[in-house]
């Protein structure tokens, strides 16, 4: 145990995700030795981030204004909504430059163990959106694990019969990979989702 405020700093840092006690200690001592100006800048960013950043009123993505950059963009196709778990998933899909529609960030996935049910996710907001805007396709891009799968199934049932296409991202082989290195589950999924080639 360190004295007073040093230990407080280590404890606070240790509460961050992905930071264990050893890393917390290392970061704390780095900060103790760092240039005061650097530390002040970090403090400022931390304060502003809490003050300025909020969540987009439409899609729930992180934003500095009422609407996020994507929802403000008039070139985006609002008839297509891609549902993701977290804001970082939006960034991941944006990097592909494949998708020109808009997003909806749920803020997690259904997981009773963690006490997360549909009411704790931004599902009501999604339903309002679907009722008010003309929609052609809803893409369910939740994580390909049990909880993400459950969330996607739940949503698909919820919007059934609303008159638009509901799709789920494909899971399967990584591009540029070798077939022999794929695990059985992935390869099995890729087999299920195979498509015909036509020339």
């Amino acid at each position, binding site marked *: 145990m360190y004295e007073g405020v040093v230990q407080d700093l280590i404890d606070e840092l240790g509460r961050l995700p992905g930071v264990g006690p050893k890393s917390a200690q290392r970061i704390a001592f780095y900060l103790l030795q760092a240039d005061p100006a650097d530390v002040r800048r970090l403090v400022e960013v931390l304060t502003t981030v809490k003050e300025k950043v909020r969540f987009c009123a439409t899609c729930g993505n992180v934003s500095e204004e009422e609407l996020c950059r994507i929802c403000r963009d008039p070139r985006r196709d609002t008839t297509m909504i891609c549902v993701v778990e977290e804001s970082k998933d939006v960034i991941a899909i944006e990097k592909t430059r494949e998708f020109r529609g808009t997003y909806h960030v749920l803020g997690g996935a*259904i*997981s*009773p*163990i963690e*006490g997360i*049910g*549909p*009411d704790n996710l931004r599902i009501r907001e999604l339903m309002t959106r679907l009722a008010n805007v003309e929609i052609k396709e809803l893409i369910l891009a939740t994580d390909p694990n*049990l*909880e993400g*799968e*459950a*969330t996607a*199934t*739940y949503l698909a*049932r919820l919007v059934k019969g609303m008159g638009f296409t509901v799709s789920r991202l494909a899971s399967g082989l990584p591009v540029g990979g070798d077939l022999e290195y794929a*695990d*059985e*589950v992935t390869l099995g999924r890729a087999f299920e989702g195979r498509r015909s080639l036509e020339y």
Partner: protein
Amino acid sequence: MYLSSLALKDFRSYEELALNLDPGVTVFIGSNGFGKTNIIEAIGYLTTLSSHRVSTDAPLVRIGTESAYLKGVVENLGRSTTIELEINPSRANRGRINQNAQRSTREIIGHIRSVLFAPEDLALVKGDPNERRKFLDILLVLRNPRYASTLSDYERVLKQRNALLKSAAGMRRVDVSALSTLEVWDQQLVAIGSELILARMQLVSALMEPVARNYKHLAEGHEISLVYQSTIWQNPQNSKQVELAEVAAGFRIALDGVRKREFERGITLAGPHRDDLLLSLRTHPLKGYASQGESWSYALALKLASYDLLRSDGVEPILILDDVFSELDTTRRDRLSDLISKNEQILITAAVPEDLPAELDGRRVAISRDGDSSSAGGVL
């Protein structure tokens, strides 16, 4: 297949142990509490990624250290494979095959195939259903490693569904929003669970013949039968006539039937996690009817049958006998050694040499003091 070397570091009582092993019979001799079973447990762990004695990893790591390290080199058809495993109770375990780090330790399953006979086997016959489910599941995964992920997925869905039921049970008025997601978990429970039930049913029907044959050898006759009894059906079904879709349909109906009670109790009441393997002798259920000797013969027959199945898949597994001869009468001892003596590699532990049948004469390794690596491995 045979294990040509085994190295342990901070595993159980061993700070460090290096053993070179040969094909044929090897007997580890030492008094109780000297660490013979720890060696056996290590080989078992490299085979199934679980211990036959404890359900958590923490007791496997030597007191005062953070992780244990196991390394086994196995020889099969002229090829040698090195399997390494680091057991970390506080974080994910790590595995390597021929020096290559693996994404998941599950990849290791199937490289070392062994069948362990231990005094704990009696629980297969006399213990709770979970002992028999574990027996089936371990064999299932060894024969087809794909089922490792089916099993862990099922466990995860079950946990999620139970958490949901429990939260609903705690409320005076059932929460509509929580309930609306139950159907989603039912769907996954049925999809994954049905696969597991069908696989276990097929395994049980494959075990039938070798269990009967081995029981006959050990105990002179008597009709035996094995039936997979699932909680999803009133009457046992014949696996040869059942298809996945039927299992799923049966599972659905069973869930509907227990729904009300599930809400009262907050747990999932039907599914492979509550199934059992019914063992019977002369049309009597074994539990409560069989003598100690008959129970032992049955437990051994189950293990010998699993060995036969693994061998029929193309690889002769390593046979490990942990202090079992002392549990058996002379007739059963002789018959067991008769059944196994021609195997490629047999590893045996015994407190005293007198416990062993005469024909199992092999290399003797003395285990003399708990955790003392210099004396373990000495050849008599």
